[in-house]
C-alpha cells in the first residue's frame, strides 16, 4: 500500500493523524487507555470544564433513539483547577494533542478559564458556546452572533499563545452567520457540531425518559446534518474546521473531510465500540491510499458539488 502522510495541521497544532475524540464522550482518556494506548489518536477533546466543579443533572441522563442517543449529563466535571491539577499531568505524558473544552456562565468566566489554561500545557482550547448566558435570560451564547463574538474575544484575549477553537451549536437558523462572527472576532478554528436538542417520551408513563425532559442528540442519526453544516461553514470561513457529529466509521470521517473539515472527532461511537477512533484512523488511511493520495489532508474540501 502506498504510504500516506496522516498528519494534519489544525490552526498551528500539528497532529499525527486527523482523528480526535469528542468532548464528554471520552472523559480525560484514562478509561479508554485501559483498552489501548491513547497515543494512537491525533488529539483528545477533554470533558467540558467549568470554572467551578459541577455535579451535573439528575439521572436518567441518557435515552437511546433510532441510531442515536439523547444526553443530559449537564457538564459534571472537576472544574478547571481540578483538571489542571489531577488530569493534565497524566495526559501530558501521552503522545497526543490535548484540547481543553470550556463552558461559562458569563464572558468573564470564559476569560478566567482561558487565563488559567494559557500556560498549563494544553495544546488548544475548545470553547463550548452551547451554554446559557445567565446575563441574557439563559439564551445560549452560540445562538446569537454578537454573543458568540463576545465570548470569542474574551477567550482570545486571555488564551495567550494557545489557539482558540469555538464549538458551534447546530440549534440555529443559519450556522454560517455564527461562524462568520466567530472568525471576525479572531477565532483560530471552529468545531462542529454540538448536539441537536431533542426529546423522547415513555408512552406508558407519559414521562420524558430524561430527567431534564430534553437533551442533546448525537450518534449516526446526526451525521448528515453535521456534514451539511461543515460544508456550509467551510464555504463561509477560512479558518480550519474540526468536524464531528455521528462519525462512527472511516467513510463518515472521509465525508466530513471532503465537506471541508481538517480533522474529525469521534464521540458517541466510542460507546458502542471503544476502539472506534482507532478503526476510523486506520480506515481513513486505507481510503486515502486507495484514492492514491500522498497526504490525508488532500481530502479536505475535496467534495465535487453538483
Amino acid at each position: 500500500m502506498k504510504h500516506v502522510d496522516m498528519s494534519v495541521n489544525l490552526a498551528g497544532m500539528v497532529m499525527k493523524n486527523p482523528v480526535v475524540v469528542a468532548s464528554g464522550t471520552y472523559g480525560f482518556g484514562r478509561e479508554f487507555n485501559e483498552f489501548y494506548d491513547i497515543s494512537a489518536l491525533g488529539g483528545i477533546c477533554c470533558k467540558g470544564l467549568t470554572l467551578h466543579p459541577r455535579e451535573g443533572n439528575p439521572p436518567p441522563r441518557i435515552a437511546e433513539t433510532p441510531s442515536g442517543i439523547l444526553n443530559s449529563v449537564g457538564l459534571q466535571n472537576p472544574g478547571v483547577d481540578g483538571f489542571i491539577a489531577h488530569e493534565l499531568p497524566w495526559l501530558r505524558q501521552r503522545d497526543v494533542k490535548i484540547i481543553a473544552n470550556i463552558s461559562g456562565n458569563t464572558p468573564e468566566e470564559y476569560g478566567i478559564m482561558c487565563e488559567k489554561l494559557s500556560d498549563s500545557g494544553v495544546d488548544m482550547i475548545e470553547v463550548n458556546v452551547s451554554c446559557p448566558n445567565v446575563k441574557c435570560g439563559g439564551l445560549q451564547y452560540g445562538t446569537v452572533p454578537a454573543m458568540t463574538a463576545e465570548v470569542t474575544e474574551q477567550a482570545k484575549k486571555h488564551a495567550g499563545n494557545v489557539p482558540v477553537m469555538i464549538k458551534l451549536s447546530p440549534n440555529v437558523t443559519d450556522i454560517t452567520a455564527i461562524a462568520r462572527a466567530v472568525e471576525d472576532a479572531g477565532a483560530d478554528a471552529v468545531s462542529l457540531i454540538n448536539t441537536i436538542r431533542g426529546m423522547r417520551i415513555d408512552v406508558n408513563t407519559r414521562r420524558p425518559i430524561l430527567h431534564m425532559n430534553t437533551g442533546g442528540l448525537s450518534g449516526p442519526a446526526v451525521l448528515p446534518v453535521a456534514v451539511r453544516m461543515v460544508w456550509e461553514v467551510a464555504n463561509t470561513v477560512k479558518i480550519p474546521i474540526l468536524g464531528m457529529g455521528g462519525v462512527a466509521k472511516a467513510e463518515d470521517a472521509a465525508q466530513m473531510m471532503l465537506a471541508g473539515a481538517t480533522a474529525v472527532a469521534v464521540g458517541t461511537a466510542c460507546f458502542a465500540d471503544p476502539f472506534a477512533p482507532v478503526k476510523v484512523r486506520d480506515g481513513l488511511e486505507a481510503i486515502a491510499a486507495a484514492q492514491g493520495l500522498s497526504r490525508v489532508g488532500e481530502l479536505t474540501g475535496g467534495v465535487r458539488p453538483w
Partner: protein
Amino acid sequence: MPMQNICRVLQAEQLTADVFSLLLEAGALARAAKPGQFVNIKCGEGNLLRRPISICDAEGDTLRVVFQAKGEGTRWLAQRRSGDELDVLGPLGHGYDYPETGKVLVVGGGIGVPPMLLAGKRAPGGAVAAVGFRDQSACILLEDFEEANIPVKIASDNGTVGHHGFVDALVREYLTEDKTISAVFACGPRPMLKSVFTAAKEFGVPCFVSMEERMGCGIGACLVCACSVGGHYRHVCKDGPVFNAEEVDW
C-alpha cells in the same frame, strides 16, 4: 482491567417465560470476573448502546449471564443460539468486597438474583441466600444455589412458593437465627434494596447493594450513569454498581 472479547455462545437456555441464560466462552474476561461486576454486551447492529448484564457465574474460561427479555436489546440477546458470537466488554465496575470473617447473606429480588449466585459461591466464609420472586413461575437458579451448597430461603409476592411476602422478612429471619452473618449483599429493584438495607441496619450488619442506572460508555468516561451516593453523583459503571447501602442517598 476491562477487555473486549468476541465470545462464543456455548449454551443457550430459556429458564422461564421471559428469562434466558447464556453460557459464554469468554477466556481471560471470565478469569478476571469478580462477583458483583457486570459485562456490557453489544445487542445487534440496530441497538447503538450496549446492554449491561451482571455476571451470574464464572468458572475457568466460561462466563454465565442470566437476563430478562424486556426491550429490543435483550430480546435480540434472547435469540442467540449455541455457536453464535457476542461482542462483550468486561469485566466492568466495582463488585462486592467480602468481610474479613463470617458468612455473607446474599439477597436477590427477581432478575436481581443472578449476580448473587457468584457472590455466594466465592464467599470465603460461606454464604446463605434469600431470594424473592413474583410467583412460582418466575423462580430461577434454585438448583444452582443448591448445587453450590448455598442454603436458600424463598419468598413470593403471592405466596405460591416459600414465604408469602417480601425478602426483607427472610433477611430478618436469617439475621435472628445466624449470628455468624457479617455482611448482607443485595441486588434487585430499588424499593427492595432499601427494605433489605433497613432490615440489615436493625441488626447492625453492614449491607452492600447493587444499583442500576442507564449507561452510555459503561467504563466511567461519559458520566451518564449517575447515582447519588454520599451527597455526590457517583457512577454506577465504575464506582459501582455495588455501593455501601449506608452511603446511598435513598
